[in-house]
């Protein structure tokens, strides 16, 4: 018997009887339990020891052990992971917090994935590198409450005061008699107790953490992954399921005029063809429309789609040409734009400067290209929907699928499976709505599979951008003026029509929050209109902003004959605490959605990671011919990260990366083993975007279609020697982001190293053949 919540009766991905599932109460039920008043719906949310912006998001956070923890009579503890797993290890890390704080033995813990429900589990938007900083304390509170309830149950059993018992490694010890009782034997009694209120919780001394901070726990899915048993979104199975691939309009916003499916329907295995309506602008996460081919297998559906003849109306984006668009943006940054920060008098200081250094940088659209393309499996029947998804936002997905089907949210059950990578693309769940609509139209369970061609044709791309920086240096070599013009279509254009400036979210990713110690600092944002769907791509606008800013530091150092590291540390300036809301002209500073009071800009922490990364790589050592060192340091997602790169460029311009050292200060951390993995991965994804990755458009159509022309990094070209150094931090230093930051400093560090090695300055990414001699 399982106490606390009703453990999942259905393992994701197993073949189940759908009709039976609909009569269940749902995956998780707290029905029969006594629930403390502080956990009633809509009542007080978890009080975090550090104040976050979580309550501004739908559902906020939840810290109720009845929701997250189940203990069965054999002692197996089941902990729900409410955040979606895309490869960061969050499905392990947050349950590990619960387990550690409740003194559970990790070997007796099972992790299950919560279905999509922002209200029940707290916000589930798994992005923004925010899972740990928002949920560390609620999960810790959950674990502490459970431990105290187990202690209380044991004390009652022995009829002694609760101060005479102590929970310890999956059992409670009687401090008077030294008797012990296991968690399994206490589960029923503990589950009947009221949950202690947050203010009464006693927490473990962090010195007693068994798992947190040790890096000794491997991800819970590791064995299954190595055996091919881990269940990803693409692996969902439903009885009677059919497979759909969709011919989307080749240009975003386009519509079907007419189609001829006669040849398609002759393809063996093809069963049906169904049209999907094009959603109006702004598209947000709504389907693109098109013609779906439904077949007995994905392979047959793909073959059927090849025979489909569709006449399209390409719509308003039919003339998008990324070459012409780039020229427009390059023109735009030669002129003043909307002023978004204006400290001192940058224009005057540039005029009176002894030297002005100017450069313009370009970063193209990028595609997420997660190895698992977008996919979802849904069955709509009897006014209800069950879907297995690969999705970063299962909670909002539940809400929007319900809206699309015209049914109540409670009638939609979303099971998030493992994602085969996501990087921001799978926040947008258009493909889940497609699966739901196709199931509704056919009455059958439908798996929608996007092919790689679909994925690259209709990504929610990283934006395209041109950054121009003019820096003024006085006669003593001090940088006294900085004017940064940043031009890029905004991701907000996906959600609002006619949104043609960068939003405070994007401007707050390195532009207006620039921490440099420069008295005259002006930021401008010329307008740019979007012609494709723009979304979040790992570390988002920090990519172009950090690339431009950190490259410019290298350019200034070179112009002044200074060492690049020294120049960067001088520009960061002395250790101080900054609040960008006090910078002149800065409006709606967002600070990654979290309070500046908890996470101000601390320049000393930025300098320290720069020092660590450069020290570790042996900055200043003599190097073989063709080698060079470069560095970049950046604050993003509230963390401080620096990467130092050693590059080697041969006589023909072939580039290799013998060594990378990354230092990260992410405050208090849970799983250093995964932090290292994510930093190593950042160097690989960074290599891809710096060297080769680029999406271009002509006539509104993406010109790249698969991995022969959208190039990712391969094992022969990436740095295999990546050192990762995590700045130690205790609980007084609030946790900050890890998933995204490692990507931000890589490209500028690499390009600064290339300059050191060759004297050639890369201002346009990708590098491509720019180094060829």
């Amino acid at each position, binding site marked *: 018997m399982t106490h606390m919540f009703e453990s999942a009766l259905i393992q994701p*991905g197993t073949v189940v009887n759908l009709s039976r599932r609909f009569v269940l109460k749902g995956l998780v039920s707290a029905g029969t339990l006594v629930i403390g008043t502080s956990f009633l719906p809509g009542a007080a949310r978890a009080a975090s020891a550090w104040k976050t912006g979580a309550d501004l998001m739908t559902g906020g956070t939840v810290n109720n052990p009845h929701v997250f923890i189940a203990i069965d009579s054999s002692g197996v503890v089941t902990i729900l992971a409410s955040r979606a*797993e895309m*490869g*960061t*290890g969050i499905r392990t890390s947050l349950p590990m917090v619960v387990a550690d704080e409740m003194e559970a033995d990790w070997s007796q813990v099972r992790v299950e994935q919560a279905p999509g429900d922002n209200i029940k589990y707290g916000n589930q938007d798994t992005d923004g590198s925010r899972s740990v900083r928002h949920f560390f304390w609620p999960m810790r509170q959950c674990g502490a409450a459970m431990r105290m309830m187990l202690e209380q149950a044991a004390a009652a059993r022995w009829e002694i005061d609760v101060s005479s018992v102590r929970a310890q490694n999956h059992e409670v010890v009687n401090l008077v008699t030294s008797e012990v009782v296991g968690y399994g034997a206490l589960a029923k009694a503990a589950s009947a107790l009221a949950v202690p209120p947050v203010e009464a919780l006693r927490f473990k001394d962090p010195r007693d953490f068994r798992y947190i901070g040790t890096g000794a726990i491997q*991800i819970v*899915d*590791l*064995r299954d*992954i*190595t*055996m*091919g*048993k881990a*269940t*990803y979104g*693409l692996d969902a199975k439903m009885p009677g399921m059919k*497979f759909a691939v969709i011919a989307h309009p080749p240009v975003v916003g386009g519509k079907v005029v007419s189609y001829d499916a006669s040849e398609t329907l002759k*393809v*063996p*295995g093809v069963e049906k063809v169904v049209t999907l309506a094009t959603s109006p602008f702004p598209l947000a996460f709504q389907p693109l429309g098109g013609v779906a081919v439904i077949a*007995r*297998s*994905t*392979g*047959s559906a*793909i073959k059927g789609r090849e025979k489909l003849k569709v006449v399209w109306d390409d719509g308003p984006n039919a003339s998008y040409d990324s070459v012409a668009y780039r020229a427009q943006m390059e023109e735009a940054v030669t002129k003043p734009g909307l002023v978004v920060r204006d400290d001192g008098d940058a224009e005057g200081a540039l005029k009176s400067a002894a030297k002005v250094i100017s450069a313009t940088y370009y970063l193209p659209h990028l595609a997420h*290209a*997660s*190895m*698992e*393309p977008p996919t979802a499996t849904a069955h709509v029947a009897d006014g209800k929907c069950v879907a297995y998804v690969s999705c970063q936002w299962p909670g909002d997905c539940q809400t929007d699928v319900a809206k699309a089907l015209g049914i109540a949210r409670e009638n939609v059950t979303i099971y998030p499976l*493992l*994602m*085969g*990578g*996501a*990087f921001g693309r799978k926040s947008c769940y258009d493909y889940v709505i497609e699966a739901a609509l196709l199931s509704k139209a056919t009455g059958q369970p439908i798996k929608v599979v996007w092919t*790689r061609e679909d994925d690259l044709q209709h990504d929610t791309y990283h934006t395209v951008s041109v950054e121009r920086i003019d820096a003024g240096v006085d006669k003593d070599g001090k940088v006294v003026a900085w004017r940064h013009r940043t031009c890029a279509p905004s991701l907000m254009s996906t959600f609002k029509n006619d949104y043609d400036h960068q939003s405070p979210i994007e401007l707050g990713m390195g532009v207006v929050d620039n921490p440099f110690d420069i008295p005259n600092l002006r930021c401008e944002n010329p307008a740019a209109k979007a012609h494709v769907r723009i979304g979040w791509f790992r570390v988002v606008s920090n990519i172009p902003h950090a690339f431009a800013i950190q490259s410019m530091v290298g350019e200034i150092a070179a112009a002044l004959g200074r060492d690049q590291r020294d120049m960067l540390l001088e520009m960061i300036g002395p250790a101080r605490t900054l609040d960008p809301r006090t910078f002149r002209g800065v409006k709606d500073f967002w600070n990654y959605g979290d309070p500046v009071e908890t996470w101000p800009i601390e320049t000393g922490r930025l300098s320290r990671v720069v020092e660590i990364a450069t020290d570790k790589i042996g900055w200043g050592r003599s190097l073989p011919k063709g080698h060079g060192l470069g560095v970049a340091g950046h604050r993003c997602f509230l963390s401080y990260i620096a990467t130092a790169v050693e590059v080697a460029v041969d006589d023909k311009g072939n580039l290799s990366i013998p060594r990378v050292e990354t230092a990260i200060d992410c405050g208090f951390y849970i799983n250093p*083993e995964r932090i290292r*993995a*994510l930093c*190593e*991965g*950042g*160097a*690989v*994804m960074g290599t891809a975007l710096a060297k080769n990755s680029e999406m271009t458009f002509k006539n509104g159509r993406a010109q790249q279609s*698969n*991995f*022969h022309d959208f190039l*990712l*990094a*391969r*094992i*022969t070209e*990436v*740095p*295999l020697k*990546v050192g990762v150094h995590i700045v130690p931090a205790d609980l007084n230093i609030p946790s900050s982001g890890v998933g995204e930051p490692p990507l931000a400093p890589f490209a500028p560090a690499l390009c600064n190293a290339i300059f050191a090695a060759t004297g050639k300055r890369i201002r346009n990414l990708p590098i491509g053949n720019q180094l060829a001699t």
Partner: protein
Amino acid sequence: MVTLQVNGRTYSYDGDPSVPLLWVLRDELGLTGTKFGCGIGLCGACTVHIDGAAARSCLLTAEQASGKEVVTIEGLDPTGNGNHPVQVAWREASAPQCGYCHAGQIMNAAALLAKTPKPSQDEILTAMNGNICRCGCYQRINEAILLATAGV
């Protein structure tokens, strides 16, 4: 009717014989350990063993696979316990992040080691160059293969 030998079992497939083996394995036989990444043989996510050699199951039709011995990640360790030396080494190195491409990576590495038990570093990189990992686990993939080579 196409007869397939997969992981030591015999299957009959009554569908279109020109459909890629990948989709027959996944959608018809339910062997979803083999992954789809590109469909044109450029990423290696769908790697299986055909008569002992690594092959991209997206490039091979069901018909072409008929009469051959197909092994997928599910059958790499015939005992079903996931203890092939490459799988063990993979866990030792904590190689995966999202893990999606890793079935293909493991199958490719296992085929390499079956043919060349002590590959040089260059041989490892050359053999693994066709397998893309977007999360960027290459450092640990390399480490895992070195571990497997050394016999963990």
